[in-house]
């Protein structure tokens, strides 16, 4: 029964929307800070992607599960406390198992709390929907966010350091684009990525209208 519901067309749509049409980063423009700051190497991007997805799912379960108990006036503070609690778990997990990544990411792990995707999804979706759909939405958004981060990170790490996951992939003669590993490179790359994503979406929309 539960299985059937999870595979219903609406469920699949919920899952897909977060990763494509309502893509948090490109389309809605949320979560830009962290995606720029930690996409310099693939390792950091992976850690951040997993961290955000984990916190999203956990928040979805808690908020959607308690949605009837949360008084409307205390919504925001409930989201914040829930999110912070899970971010502490992520931080301690990284500290314990991946100390080098944790050190490189510095304050950015803590800043998952203010990642607008979390608050945004909690307010827009989890507070009004049942747990099952909320979790699907969380997974969709988490995947959408992570693959973007990973895409940016792969480009930036190859161009900026000439490596991938720390292994050399470019020939010795490769001139590193140091600027790609720094802030301006992040801006340029995200700007270009948003441009491409928007153009594709616009083309698709006008095609749908034409039909």
């Amino acid at each position: 029964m539960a299985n059937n519901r999870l595979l219903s067309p609406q469920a699949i749509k919920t899952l897909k929307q977060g990763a494509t049409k309502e893509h948090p980063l490109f389309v809605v423009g949320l979560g830009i800070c962290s995606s720029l700051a930690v996409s310099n190497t693939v390792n950091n991007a992976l850690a951040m992607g997993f961290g955000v997805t984990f916190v999203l799912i956990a928040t979805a379960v808690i908020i959607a599960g308690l949605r009837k108990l949360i008084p409307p006036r205390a919504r925001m503070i409930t989201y914040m406390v829930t999110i912070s609690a899970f971010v502490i778990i992520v931080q301690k997990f990284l500290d314990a198992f991946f100390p080098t990544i944790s050190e490189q990411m510095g304050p950015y792990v803590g800043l998952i709390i203010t990642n607008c995707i979390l608050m945004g999804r909690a307010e827009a979706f989890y507070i009004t929907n049942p747990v099952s759909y909320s979790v699907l939405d969380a997974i969709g958004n988490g995947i959408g966010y992570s693959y973007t981060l990973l895409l940016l990170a792969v480009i930036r790490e190859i161009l900026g350091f000439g490596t991938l996951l720390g292994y050399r992939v470019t020939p010795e003669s490769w001139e590193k684009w140091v600027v790609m590993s720094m802030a301006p490179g992040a801006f340029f790359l995200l700007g270009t990525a948003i441009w491409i994503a928007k153009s594709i979406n616009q083309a698709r929309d006008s095609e749908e209208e034409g039909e």
Partner: protein
Amino acid sequence: MVHLLTIIAASLLTHNIALTYLLGMCPFVSMSRRMNTATGMGVAVIFVVTITAAINWAIYHYVLVPLHSELIYFIVFIIVIAAFVQLLEMVMERFFPPLQAAFGIFLPLITVNCIVLAVSLFMILRDYSFAATVVFAFGSAVGWTLAMLIVAAINERLKLIGNIPQGLAGIGIIMIIAGIIALSFLGFGGMVDVR
């Protein structure tokens, strides 16, 4: 004293919180479309960041450390920030209605502005003293506002020329402008050296 001056120069120019650490980008993007909203947001952020960093420093060092509960400082900081913003809104509504009319709409947005929390987190990571924290918070917020104003001004000019490709309009072009400004801010690098 020299240390404090170094911190303020670093947070304003060489280690600008928006252009080097890439923080506070969501409001940066949404606010830098128009010059006057950017100014309003900037003033509100400078005020809130400086004061919450001071409060958080005091709470961390006088409450959390003696109680050995540093673990929960994320939760404490974010609650302090949210509570302070709420309080500020109420005080302004009650005593300074014109101010509320001008800055009111920016206040709720500040709670989720990452730089407010980021400044508090940096101060813990770098082990700043109280004076250093206040100076760093103020400098960072001013630096963030500076960056946003530059981008907003360029963006307003660009709109007048109006030759932006359709897909690039909005967030895209702001990213490109910010990238160029960040590139020019790299020119300040090496002026001061601070962790």
